[in-house]
């Protein structure tokens, strides 16, 4: 397949090409590997490229397709964020701590994709342990924004978003703890979905903040997003927080339109530090939705302003416990030249973790300490309950809420590295959905100075169908998702 043809390829039409045998999965996979080789020096989206196993996967997929046993994702080349465990392929979390860690098990989603006969091209770069909003916290490499390689792709799923944006793969799976799928999707001009907490099993997702983490697809189109979610969602007995609720057929309802849809626009998402150009693009997008028959109403969600603070207590608290296991004793990086056991553990963590990870471990340890627990962690949990309630109430009146994904477009590399607070503010519009556990999607909605702007929508828990419906209607009415980087 010609390299330029990959730029317009989606899962949907690749499926047709594969099923009609106009192309084999092997040809498709080899084209993507070539595309990766051609673009990777600029983008740095992959931590690991698993060329050999991908070719093997593709050959097996072709056998399935030849015998008519294919599913939606059979033979489709994809990438996985490098915090999703892959048996036999190293899974690093972009941390020195796990630089050579090869899991002896697959994540639930990895297994689901393998069972479908999908083709794993490799592992996508991220901020170390998914902590960051620019992918600059990776211990190995800095991923660049395909629209402008002097800029960040966002994060923490910067590798996955940049990789899909640069057409290095048909889709990628990311993880979203406070916006880590949606914010980079917005900055790279692709579709990013964070499903309802519990909709996709977290088994094998290397934990950052267990009560907030959720896996979701990064794709070229909304329909592709639905196709991927369809195949990774569902109950998993190995994840006690996964929801035992049937998965609806998203493709059946996706094109039903949004006539009569009630869309709420919370005014709090248009205040703090939003770039006026971004605001204008989002306001224009709302008009598009209105023209499609939706009823747009401005509302107020006053507790929104507390979400960031709540997040920066709960997420580091959980992280501080989740990351204690990395002590060099059992697996991963181990500082060998230590004097004794405690010295070894200390130095392993001192040299194995980067600054942002250490910062969050310290924050979390502090917030959980006796004497501070009530004032920080417990209070944050109470506010979390209130925020969740505020959203529940809003979804009694509205089908979806619409707002910007990120206050700005992609910023320059190194621009915010010295100021953690500025970096944290990137996620101010995405964090509330994680706090409330509700689904949320970011879709391309405009360009500002040749940089993509994302429109974010949220719906009630387990109402992904409504998100797909609204996002698909918008996508059909606009051309923004067709704008690709010039690479």
């Amino acid at each position, binding site marked *: 397949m010609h390299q330029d043809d990959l730029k317009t390829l989606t899962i949907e039409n690749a499926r047709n090409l594969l099923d009609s045998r106009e192309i084999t999965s092997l040809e498709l996979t080899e084209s993507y590997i070539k595309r990766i080789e051609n673009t990777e020096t600029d983008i740095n989206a992959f931590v690991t490229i698993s060329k050999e196993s991908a070719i093997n996967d593709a050959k097996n997929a072709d056998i399935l397709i030849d015998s008519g046993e294919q599913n939606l994702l059979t033979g489709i080349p994809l990438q996985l964020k490098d915090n999703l465990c892959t048996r036999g392929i190293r899974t690093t979390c972009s941390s020195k701590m796990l630089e050579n860690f090869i899991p002896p098990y697959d994540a639930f989603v990895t297994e689901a994709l393998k069972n479908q006969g999908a083709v794993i091209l490799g592992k996508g770069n991220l901020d170390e342990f998914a902590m960051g909003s620019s992918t600059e916290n990776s211990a190995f490499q800095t991923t660049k924004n395909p629209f402008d390689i002097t800029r960040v792709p966002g994060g923490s799923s910067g590798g996955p978003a940049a990789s899909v944006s640069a057409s290095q793969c048909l889709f990628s799976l990311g993880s979203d703890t406070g916006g880590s799928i949606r914010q980079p999707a917005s900055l790279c001009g692709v579709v990013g979905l964070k499903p309802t907490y519990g909709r996709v099993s977290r088994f094998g997702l290397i934990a950052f903040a267990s009560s907030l983490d959720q896996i979701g697809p990064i794709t070229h189109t909304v329909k592709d997003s639905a196709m991927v979610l369809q195949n990774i969602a569902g109950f998993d007995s*190995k994840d006690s927080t996964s929801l035992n609720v049937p998965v609806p057929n998203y493709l059946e309802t996706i094109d039903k339109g949004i006539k009569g849809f009630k869309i709420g626009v919370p005014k709090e998402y248009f205040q703090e530090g939003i770039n006026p150009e971004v605001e204008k693009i989002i306001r224009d997008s709302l008009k598009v939705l209105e023209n499609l028959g939706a009823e747009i109403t401005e509302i107020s969600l006053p507790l929104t302003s507390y979400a960031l603070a709540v997040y920066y207590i709960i997420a580091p608290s959980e992280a501080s416990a989740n990351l204690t296991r990395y002590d060099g004793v059992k*697996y991963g990086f181990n500082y060998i030249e230590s004097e004794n056991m405690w010295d070894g553990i200390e130095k392993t963590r001192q040299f194995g973790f980067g600054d942002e990870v250490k910062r969050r471990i310290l924050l979390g340890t502090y917030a959980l*300490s006796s004497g501070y627990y009530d004032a920080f962690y417990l209070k944050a949990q109470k506010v979390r309950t209130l925020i969740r309630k505020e959203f529940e109430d809003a979804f009694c009146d509205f089908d979806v809420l619409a707002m910007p994904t990120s206050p700005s477009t992609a910023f320059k590399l190194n621009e915010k590295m010295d100021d953690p607070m500025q970096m944290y503010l990137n996620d101010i519009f995405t964090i509330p959905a994680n706090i409330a556990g509700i689904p949320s999607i970011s879709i391309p909605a405009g360009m500002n100075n040749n940089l993509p702007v994302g429109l974010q929508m949220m719906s009630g828990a387990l109402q992904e169908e409504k998100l797909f419906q609204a996002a698909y209607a918008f996508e059909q009415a606009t051309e923004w998702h067709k704008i690709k980087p010039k690479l």
Partner: protein
Amino acid sequence: MNNKYETVIGLEVHSQLLTNSKMFCGCGSDYQKAEPNSRVCPVCMGMPGVLPVVNRKAVELIIKTGLAIGCSINGETKFDRKNYSYPDLMKGYQISQFDLPVAINGNLNISLNGNEKTIGVTRVHLEEDVARLIHKNEPNGTSHSLIDINRAGVPLMEIVSEPDMRSPEEANEYLIQLHSIVRSIKASTANMEEGSFRCDANISMRLKGTTELGTKVEIKNVNSFRSVFRALQFEQNRQINLLEIGEQIIQETRGWSDESEKTVSQRIKEFAADYRYFPEPDLPPIIISKQWVDQIKSTITELPAEKIQRFIKSFQLSEYDSSLLISNDIIATFFEDTVNECKNLGLNYESSAKTCANLLNVDLSRILNEKQLQISDLNTDYGDFSILIKMISEDTLNSTMAKTVFENMLLLGKSPIEIADNLGLTQISDTDSLEQIISEILSQNSPAVQDYLEGKETAIRFLIGQVMKETKGKANPKIATEIIISQIKKS
């Protein structure tokens, strides 16, 4: 003991639950005899990205334990992370329970020198065991540690008492009671030597009449009932001696050394350990319905204290004999089956119970010890055993013979009649042959006969001894005595 002071003791018992698999994964919990690191998986090894799933059986066993010691069962329970860093803790936190344990507010009755007393149980909660560290010192002076992860994740319950015990004796009694309860409801093997039943003791002293608690010392992981008792006795005296010379007790953890019979300071707690507990986000709270509790309640049959009372009543046994018998389920059942069978054979109920209890409590444990055997190694059934009791009660066997036959039954699995025949062990109760033997003995021992006639009752014992010598111990002593007396009187 100086009676100015009152001793205050509270106990924390950790007991491994008797489940097939571990607390949060499918690995077998049969780690005791397994090759090191053979009962492990990514979950119990704390590898990245894995998640715990609660073992329902473990929750049931802890509910059962709670019910057996009179606790209320919380309708909703949850898990929390207890954070600390140590190489035996795979995840860097232990999944435990903080503010919503499965069971709370129980009590346990103990009896000491005939006095009854109730000890409060604060809580029973569920957690996971940690890996085993083996420290090796090499002859060249270097040292290293090995980790066996088999034990990591084995379900563990912690039973915390109120500080209600006032002496090492009471603490010992509480432990014995608790131990026998968790064994009898099959919640745990509670084998102290294997570490499946472990005890930490808190002890402090205060002046009699005061209510404020003194500074406490924690004695960690003592591995036998005797050691707990001795450690508490030692600690009680140590603290009184310090107080008497005006010194302060330091709040600390002390370890008991079986060799030196002393507690030794391990760690001084200058400030309370901060475990930074917070709710386990990987496990939703568990709802414990009333139906579930009722269903578990219905599986609790007879608790040890009740069983002891029944044995005392229906078999007319002493409390001591009864509690020894019921301390092992297999023996208790064997005992009951035998005594019932004896009744079917037309024997006296109470006296066969007494004979049976003696053989089981005294001789059986001696044989097990001597031969280094387990109860499960022995092969005899209650039918054969009741025939043995019958032979004893009919004087076919004297007590020495009975012991020999019993031992052979246990080891060979043959019937007592066959064994007695093979070994030539049957009492001579036949009066004709005894009359003849005794008449000869009396004629050979006229001084003893003379002594008896002069009123020296003890002379009769000497004569019986001679009869026994002659018959190689087979004479029925009762019949022989009668014959001796009647022959002397006739002469």
